[in-house]
């Protein structure tokens, strides 16, 4: 039998070389090394995801990643200095910042002051010393055979390991600040465990120069826990982010992602309702122009009964930008009384912009309420005329209508501080928009 050797792209070859060159130095031995090796084998067998892989149909990473940038080296003093204002979008919330520069944890820029119920560590350190929390959860929060995630597992360097103890309610939001100081590639992996009845608000920001970032977060939401999770991507280059979530019973979570001023972004969320009577929302807004490309892909798995999920994504598209939404709701056998709704809307400000929407439902229970909807369209000329007839000029009328379009989703954010920060970031984007006469 002849061996089939798939042709590898230069980027795939460079990634293989990077892994082989780094594997002896990557943190962790024993089971961690085995986890890495297995993950790399999976990646190597399939290569970078491309358009014939259904989940990556609209974001052909094999084509987009024409070459793999070299692995980031630990940031020098100069690089650390440039990270000073990174993630300032949430400054008004006075968050506890944990700063990563080119994928490496920088303790001196981070707030490590003690707080009851909160444990913080670096992933690199945790992998090295064989941390119990990492051993218990890493790679187990939501098992997926996604190859971009496999690459992250193989190459993971640093990240945050955070535990919020049972019953604790964090006084300040946590913010993972990811800043890229150099045009390199980095692989961060974080683990956050919110134990039973605990409460936490977590933000994650990505900015800096045009790097190649493959980041993953495993977020374990315990029974009766409450979590708000916000992510803002504002970085050129290529960003692939995976969110892996497991939600216990009677828990509440609300997540939101804002993408603006980006290059190519893929946010993939794998979320499992694992316990009964939980509620959660997954929302996002893309504000795109030029040739920006953002792909939000969700897999929402209802594995337990009596849970409610809400997914809502909006995109404002100018220039030749492209927004992709793929949302799959899976209701497992026995997950009766599931209530899951998904909605995506795109506002096209240019004839050359493109919105792709692919909602999917897979239902294996017979007593559920599930639905999805998708729209794409231009600004409503009737609304524009109405505003203008009151004296508002065309540019401001468009701004108000776009603001209203975004506002519909942003207003739903339950966390007041995050809501204000997101709206203000969106308004900043609107201010820089050019209106064509």
């Amino acid at each position, binding site marked *: 039998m002849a061996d089939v050797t798939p042709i590898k792209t230069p980027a795939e070859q460079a990634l293989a070389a990077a892994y082989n060159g780094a594997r002896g130095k990557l943190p962790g031995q024993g089971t961690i090394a085995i986890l890495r090796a297995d993950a790399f084998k999976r990646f190597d067998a399939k290569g970078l995801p491309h358009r014939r892989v259904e989940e990556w149909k609209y974001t052909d990473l094999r084509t987009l990643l024409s070459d793999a940038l070299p692995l980031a080296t630990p940031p020098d003093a100069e690089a650390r200095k440039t990270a000073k204002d990174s993630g300032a979008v949430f400054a008004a919330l006075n968050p506890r910042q944990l700063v990563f520069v080119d994928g490496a944890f920088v303790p001196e820029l981070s707030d490590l002051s003690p707080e009851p119920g909160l444990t913080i560590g670096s992933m690199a350190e945790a992998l090295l010393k064989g941390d119990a929390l990492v051993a218990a959860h890493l790679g187990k929060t939501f098992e997926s055979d996604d190859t971009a995630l496999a690459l992250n597992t193989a190459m993971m360097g640093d990240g945050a390991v955070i535990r919020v103890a049972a019953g604790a309610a964090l006084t300040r939001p946590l913010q993972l600040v990811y800043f890229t100081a150099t045009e390199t590639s980095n692989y961060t992996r974080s683990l956050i465990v919110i134990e039973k009845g605990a409460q936490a608000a977590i933000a994650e920001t990505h900015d800096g120069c045009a790097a190649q970032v493959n980041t993953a977060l495993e977020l374990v939401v315990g029974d009766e826990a409450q979590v708000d999770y916000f992510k803002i991507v504002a970085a050129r280059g290529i960003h692939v982010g995976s969110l892996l979530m497991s939600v216990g019973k009677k828990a509440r979570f609300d997540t939101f992602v804002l993408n603006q001023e980006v290059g190519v972004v893929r946010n993939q969320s794998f979320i499992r309702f694992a316990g009964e009577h939980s509620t959660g929302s997954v929302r996002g807004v893309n504000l795109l122009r030029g040739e920006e490309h953002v792909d939000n892909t969700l897999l929402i798995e209802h594995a337990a009964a009596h849970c409610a999920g809400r997914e809502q994504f909006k995109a404002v598209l100018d220039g030749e930008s492209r927004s992709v939404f793929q949302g799959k709701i899976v209701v497992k056998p026995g997950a009766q009384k599931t209530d899951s709704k998904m909605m995506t809307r795109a506002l096209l400000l240019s004839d050359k912009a493109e919105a792709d929407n692919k909602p999917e439902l897979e239902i294996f229970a017979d007593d559920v309420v599930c639905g999805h909807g998708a729209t794409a369209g231009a600004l409503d*000329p*009737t*609304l524009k*005329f*109405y*505003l*203008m*007839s*009151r*004296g*508002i*000029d*065309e540019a*401001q*009328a468009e701004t*108000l*209508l776009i*603001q*209203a*379009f*975004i*506002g*519909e989703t942003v*207003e739903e954010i339950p966390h007041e501080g995050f809501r204000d920060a997101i709206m203000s970031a969106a308004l900043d984007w609107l201010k820089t928009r050019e209106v064509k006469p």
Partner: protein
Amino acid sequence: MSLLEIKNLHVEIEDEGKKILNGLTLTIEKGQVAAIMGPNGSGKSTLAYVLAGRPGYAVTEGDILLDGESILDMAPNERAAKGVFLAFQYPVEVPGVATMTFLRTALNAQRKLRGEGEISTPEFLKLVRAEAGDLGINQDMLRRGVNVGFSGGEKKRAEILQMAILQPRIAVLDETDSGLDIDALRIVSEGVNRLRSPERSMIVITHYQRLLNYIVPDVVHVLAKGRVVRTGGKELALELEAKGYAQYTDEAA
């Protein structure tokens, strides 16, 4: 000089080429309240939209002069700053834009175009409170998105509130009575009557005479097939109510 002069206006719907106004000539004096009545399809709403500058209508002949100056090349917001106001037959909902923000943005935009300074916050709040109170519009409605979740009557009252805040020189009320019950009709009409002044003209478009019991016009024009076919005093409205429009549609045919 008359405030508004519409001269031999011919208007088609763009793309379709369908002709709606057919040599309409009409003069509105300063301080005058003119009722425009006419059957369905006579061009009443088209006239309202063309005055306000809605895109989609092509003026193929004629002119509209405000204070002797043509407004045809002006954008809707420029016309608004000159004092043109259209109260919509079907006010649209603008979710996400709070009514207060909208009113203030509109007022300041007009003032800016006229070279006036922005209104101060206390002055603005005082103005809105006074007018909203008279129209039975509460704080909750002002905080909500423009017209969002308003009933038909509330939307019409909100239109009159906008008019009261923006203080136009020529207000066009497009079937403001449609969809109103008697009580709402009274509130809206009282709001309009409070705004009558020797400096402000109004064009009241309606099918029915009923509205004109509340807003008594100085003059009544009958529109049929895209032009004015008869002009008379307020008693003309009563005659139309009694006899209907048939004679005009036949005449014009």
